[in-house]
C-alpha cells in the first residue's frame, strides 16, 4: 500500500474491496454524496443556452421573459428572442453542489457533495420571430390627434400605455420594440405612449413643408428647436420635436435634422392609397408625383412591403395587421394576388422567419413554384 491509499478511511477501503475496484487506480480524493437539507428543491430549473446568451447575461446581468398570460414564454435579449420549451431528458439529472471548501477533509481526502435537486427535464430555447402585432393593437384604439385630443374624455378614459406595459407584454427584443415604435411614430406624451394618427401626421408634414418655404430652411437642415416652436399651433412643442426626430436623421451636433426622403414619399403614397381599394398604377404614379415636393425622389420600390402591384393596378396592404400565423398570412396574400415573384412576396414574409432556410421551408410548405416565360412565380399550394 502506498501513502495515498492510506487516505481512504476503513469503510471506504472495504467498500472498494467489495466492489473490486483496484484502489491503486484511483485518485486519492473521493467524494461523498449526501442528500441536501432542501431536497427535493423544486425551485431549480435548468435552461440550455448558447454561448452568446451567456455573454449577454454577463454583460447586462439579466435576461427577460416576456408575454401576456396566454402566450408561450419568450426569453428576450437586447436583440434576439427565443421561445422557451420544456424538454424531458431521458436520464435523471442529479444536481450536486460542494459544501464550502472548508469541508474538504484533507485528512482522508473526502469532499462532501450535497444533492439538492433531482430533475427530469430541462428548458430549451429556439430562436423565434418578434411578435410586434400586439403593439399596434394596443395603440390603434386611441391615436393622438394634436390639440383636439380626445384623451381628456373623462367618461370613457382610455387605457394608458407605458413603456413598461409594452416591454412586459410584447414578445420582442428591446431593439425590435424600439425600432418598431419609431416606425409607427409613437411618441411619449405625459409619460405614456401614444400613436400619432395617420391624418394628423399628414397635417404635421404639410405644416413642416409650409414652414420650410416660409423660413427658407433647407430640407436637409431643419433646426429642430425653432421648427418645433413654430409648430405649437397644432401640437405641443415636445410632440413636434419627437416627430421631427422620427422622420429625419439628426445632424452630428443634434441641433438640426435632415428629412428622410423615403419616409416622406412613402407617407404620401400611403395617404393616396390607404382609403382606396386599388388604383391604376400609371394614374397613381402621376398623382404621387404631384403631391410629393419635387425635390423628393419617388420610386415604386420605396413601397415594398406596403403595396401589392398586380395587373397594372396598385393597392395598399396593411402589413402590421397581417396574421402572425403563416397559413393565415399566406391565405390573405394569395387572396389579393394569384402569383407572386420571390422579390414581391419576400417583404411580407420576412417577419415570420429568422433565417433564410426557414424562409425557404415556409415557401415550400405553403406555395408551389411555377415557371412562366423564364420567370419563377409562386402560387398557392392548394386552391
Amino acid at each position, binding site marked *: 500500500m502506498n501513502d495515498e491509499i492510506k487516505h481512504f478511511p476503513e469503510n471506504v477501503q472495504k467498500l472498494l474491496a467489495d466492489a473490486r475496484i483496484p484502489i491503486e487506480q484511483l485518485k486519492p480524493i473521493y*467524494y461523498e*454524496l449526501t442528500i441536501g437539507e432542501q431536497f427535493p428543491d423544486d425551485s431549480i430549473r*435548468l435552461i440550455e443556452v448558447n454561448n452568446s446568451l451567456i455573454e449577454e447575461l454577463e454583460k447586462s446581468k439579466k435576461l427577460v421573459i416576456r408575454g401576456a398570460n396566454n402566450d408561450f414564454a419568450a426569453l428576450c435579449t437586447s436583440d434576439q428572442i427565443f421561445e422557451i420549451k420544456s424538454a424531458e431528458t431521458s436520464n435523471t439529472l*442529479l444536481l450536486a453542489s460542494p459544501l464550502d471548501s472548508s469541508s474538504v477533509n484533507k485528512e482522508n481526502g473526502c469532499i462532501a457533495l450535497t444533492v439538492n435537486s433531482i430533475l427530469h427535464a430541462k428548458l430549451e430555447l429556439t430562436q423565434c420571430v418578434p411578435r410586434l402585432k400586439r403593439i399596434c393593437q394596443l395603440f390603434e384604439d386611441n391615436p393622438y390627434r394634436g390639440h383636439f385630443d380626445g384623451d381628456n374624455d373623462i367618461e370613457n378614459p382610455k387605457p394608458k400605455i407605458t413603456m413598461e406595459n409594452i416591454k412586459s407584454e410584447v414578445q420582442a427584443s428591446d431593439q425590435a420594440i424600439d425600432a418598431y415604435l419609431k416606425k409607427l411614430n409613437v411618441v411619449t406624451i405625459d409619460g405614456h405612449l401614444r400613436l400619432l394618427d395617420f391624418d394628423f401626421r399628414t397635417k404635421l408634414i404639410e405644416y413642416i413643408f409650409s414652414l420650410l418655404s416660409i423660413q427658407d430652411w433647407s430640407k436637409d437642415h431643419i433646426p429642430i428647436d425653432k421648427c418645433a416652436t413654430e409648430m405649437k399651433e397644432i401640437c405641443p412643442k415636445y410632440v413636434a420635436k419627437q416627430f421631427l426626430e422620427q422622420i429625419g436623421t439628426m445632424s452630428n451636433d443634434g441641433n438640426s435634422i435632415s428629412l428622410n426622403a423615403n419616409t416622406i414619399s412613402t407617407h404620401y403614397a400611403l395617404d393616396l392609397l390607404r382609403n382606396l381599394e386599388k388604383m391604376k398604377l400609371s394614374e397613381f404614379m402621376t398623382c404621387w408625383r404631384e403631391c410629393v415636393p419635387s425635390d423628393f425622389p419617388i420610386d415604386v420600390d420605396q413601397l415594398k412591403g406596403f403595396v401589392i402591384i398586380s395587373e397594372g393596378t396598385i393597392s395598399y396592404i396593411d402589413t402590421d395587421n397581417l396574421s402572425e400565423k403563416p397559413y393565415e398570412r399566406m391565405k390573405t396574400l394569395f387572396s389579393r394576388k394569384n402569383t407572386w415573384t420571390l422579390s414581391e412576396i419576400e417583404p411580407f414574409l420576412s417577419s415570420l422567419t429568422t433565417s433564410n432556410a426557414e424562409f425557404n421551408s415556409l415557401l415550400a410548405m405553403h406555395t408551389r413554384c411555377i415557371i412562366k416565360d423564364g420567370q419563377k412565380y409562386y402560387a398557392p399550394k392548394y386552391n
Partner: protein
Amino acid sequence: MLASNYHVYICDYAAEKQSLSGERVGFLFFTQNDMPVCVIGQHILDGKMVELDKPLLVMRKQQADGTNNTSYQVECVIKRKLLFHKRSKPIVHYSSKKT
C-alpha cells in the same frame, strides 16, 4: 475540476429516494485517467466526463413580489457533466461468497 459550483450526475436509472435529508447517496471516485466511478448502494456505475454542447444555466425561482413579476436567479453555469451511461454492475460481497 468542474467549471461550476455544481456537478451534474446522470444515472441511467433513477436513483430516487424518498426525501431523506442527510442520507448518504453513495461515493464518487475518479480513476487516474479521470474516469468517474460511482458507488451507490450495491451498484457500481462507470461513467465519463462530458463537455456540454450548450451550457446549462441553473436558475432558482425567486418568491414573487406580490405583483405579476416572477424572477429567476441564475446561480451558476454548468459546462460539463458526469454521464453514467453504462449498465450498473452489482457488488458481490467477498464475505457472502466465502460462506
